[in-house]
């Protein structure tokens, strides 16, 4: 049985035992179940520690993404409210390492919502992404930021 399924069963049992069959109750149950599974991790050696690493990567992706969304909105707000436009926009080609349509979709969506970049188009063969950048003074830095930031987090979470 996969650990994820086990975790959901633990969450339901927690909600049933505490009599809080509500969304927060199930949420608390899931967290408690996850922690207890983590404590007894050696019992699940044959399944490997993959589940715990994966949950950690998803949590990291979600937290970092919200942080970047706030930062990018503030920088847009600054550019809108101040009289001069500081933007030096440019259209850049960024090589994509993401495999499969799901990864490309997630990467391009997240790139659109993070600071300074907006995905414009992907070539037919899915290996080059064109982004519109607000500050395109250093295209190589933007490409490596995407590759080592959002794209790597997404690939690690989905692989």
């Amino acid at each position: 049985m996969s650990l994820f399924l086990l975790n959901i069963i633990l969450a339901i049992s927690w909600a049933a035992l505490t009599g809080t069959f509500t969304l927060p109750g199930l949420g608390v149950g899931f967290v408690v179940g996850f922690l207890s599974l983590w404590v007894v991790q050696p019992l699940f050696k044959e399944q490997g520690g993959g589940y715990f690493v994966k949950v950690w990567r998803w949590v990291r992706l979600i937290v970092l993404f919200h942080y970047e969304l706030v930062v990018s909105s503030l920088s847009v707000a600054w550019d809108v409210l101040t009289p001069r436009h500081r933007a030096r926009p440019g259209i850049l080609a960024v090589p994509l390492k993401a495999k499969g349509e799901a990864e490309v979709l997630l990467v391009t969506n997240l790139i659109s919502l993070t600071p300074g970049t907006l995905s414009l188009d992907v070539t037919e063969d899915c290996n080059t992404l064109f982004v519109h950048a607000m500050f395109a003074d250093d295209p190589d830095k933007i490409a490596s930021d995407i590759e080592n930031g959002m794209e790597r987090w997404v690939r690690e979470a989905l692989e």
Partner: protein
Amino acid sequence: MILELFLSLCVLSGGFFAFIAGLGILRLPDVLIRMHATTKAGTLASGLIILGVAVGIGDAPTIARALAIVVFLLLTAPVAAHMIGRAAFRTGITLWGPTTVDPSAPVKLNARHDD
């Protein structure tokens, strides 16, 4: 008291970012830069207001709906911006003066050239 402060902060800052997104459409110089304002600030604005509603009402149906709304917002807003930006670029809209364009972009994306 603290909860009320938090809720007001959510709704007010959400309103602020929605205002920024709208003002950005008026003020920013070309269509692609405007898409930056509407996707980022607009998504954050709706997210903040929905967060305020979910925490303020706080029962399961509301929270479930709020979660669903946020998920679909995060999925669809960037896709819409992407389609508008792509259409604008392919039809050869004039970009703001200082914009630099990667030389391979128009070829690979079959953009139309009028100049």
